[in-house]
């Protein structure tokens, strides 16, 4: 065994033992729940399990939830597995990546099935059956909407793509898809992004405060915004060569865009850092019980 591998393995084993020792003595990573009967209708009890802070674990109706406790430990393993990529590509990271791909693809499929295919397609085509099974809240007397045979047919055509021959059949639903996207985006982008942004940019360049005095900072702000938008647009206008006055204005646009990209970069990095802080809080608070920012274990 290589020396580096030996050191890492020893460290991992010692760390694992320390974790198990801490779990056995302190009880970290455990989740407690309270079973609450919310209703009892026709002999059927509807029970909800609510998570409670560990400080309430000695209360009579509170019990340890093994599924959620195992979940916390698996969640921690997943987090550490993905974080291990910082040290380089490794089998644990690849394992977690594979699990992520599988779970996320299936989760999206399940969500699409229940939210769209059942709620939308089946509800319109077979309302009676849906009312007796998945959607009991459907109003009685709802008739079949035969227009939904069209998306059903197109769905079949789209799935034809999986067949070894006749893949061109899938182009028809794809064309519908593309056409709908284009039509919807054309209007929504022109409405929300084009006209709305222009509308928001039409602002007074000379600003007066509430007491009718001249607001110099408000005025400078508005002048900078209006001129900034114009400079940015001049830079994006390629129908005229960027020479002379246009070139000078375009150069101003470049400066503005550089500041925008810098701000966006800083903002994005800080967003990711916030996510990282959230994961670290999970590890140190929910899993290891080393910190307690939400006072969940006070008095334990």
């Amino acid at each position, binding site marked *: 065994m290589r020396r580096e591998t030996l050191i890492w393995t020893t460290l991992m084993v010692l760390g694992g033992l320390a974790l198990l020792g801490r779990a056995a003595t302190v009880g970290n990573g455990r989740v407690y729940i309270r079973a609450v009967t919310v209703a009892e209708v026709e002999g059927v009890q509807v029970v909800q399990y609510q998570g409670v802070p560990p400080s309430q674990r000695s209360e009579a109706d509170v019990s340890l939830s093994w599924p959620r406790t195992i979940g916390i430990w698996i969640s921690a393993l997943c987090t550490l597995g993905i974080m291990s990529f910082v040290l380089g590509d490794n089998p644990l990271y690849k394992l977690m990546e594979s699990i992520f791909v599988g779970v996320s693809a299936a989760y999206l*499929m399940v969500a699409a099935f229940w939210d769209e295919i059942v709620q939308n397609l089946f509800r319109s085509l077979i309302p009676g059956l849906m009312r007796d099974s998945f959607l009991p809240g459907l109003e009685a007397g709802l008739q079949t909407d035969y227009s939904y045979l069209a998306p059903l047919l197109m769905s079949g055509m789209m*799935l034809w793509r999986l067949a070894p021959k006749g893949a061109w059949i899938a182009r028809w639903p794809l*064309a519908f898809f593309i056409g709908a996207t284009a039509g919807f985006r054309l209007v929504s982008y022109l409405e929300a992004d*084009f006209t709305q942004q222009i509308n928001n940019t039409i602002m007074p360049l000379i600003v007066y405060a509430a007491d009718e005095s001249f607001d110099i900072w408000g005025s400078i702000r508005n002048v900078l915004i209006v001129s900034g938008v114009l400079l940015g647009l001049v830079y994006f206008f390629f129908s005229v060569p960027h020479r002379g006055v246009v070139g000078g204005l375009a150069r101003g646009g470049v400066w503005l*865009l550089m500041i*925008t990209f810098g701000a966006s970069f*800083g903002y994005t990095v800080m967003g990711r850092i916030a996510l990282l802080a959230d994961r670290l809080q999970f590890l140190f608070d929910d899993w290891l019980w080393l910190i307690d920012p939400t006072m969940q274990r006070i008095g334990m």
Partner: protein
Amino acid sequence: MKRTVPIVIAAATGFVLIVSSFIPLTEEWGSAAMQWFNILAAIAFVLGGSNLLRMNLQKISDRRLGWGYAAVTLVAFLVTLFVGLFKVGVQPTESFPTYAWAAPYNQEGSFLWWLFEYMYKPLQATMFSLLAFFIASAAFRAFRAKNPEAIALLATAFIVLMGRTYVGGLMREFLPERLEWLSFDAMTNYIMSVFNLAGMRAITIGIALGVASTSLKVLLGVDRSYLGAGDD
């Protein structure tokens, strides 16, 4: 037939949606088209899942490098699909206690909820959080203060980064009141509400025009790239 009909379908669908935004009588056509669109989008997930299944099965049967990971993907995929479609662990709800299948598929306590809460969410959040390191390392390698514009970008990024931290706010306490605008958080607010706003507005207007022209090209049949190159 193979190429003309799709162009007609795309144009008809697109123009129906555009017209429905202007003529109230056709509003229902637009909403129906959007409902159909959502159904097809859901079916596209089925298509994607089937492709994932096929590719990974192929990899396993060919014993290609990393086939073990493909097996893990497959198991994770099938288990999640099974527990989600069959609503494993879902309890009847208060509203419909006698309808076992009526409860939401992602109800708290169900198996799918467990997979989402304890696997999907931490994996996704950690993966995105790792990007902080990679963005920073890529920036360190790519950004060079070789001209004034690049210096402006770097300086802005530094100010915004500092302004969004605890240190950014702390600076205010050491500055006299009339110089508070020099603190990182005040400068960040000004950059975000003036320069970033103006720049993003110009970019957004440009994007909107680009989307509109691309959409028109698709609807008028000028852009046919979505049909692919081959005859079949």
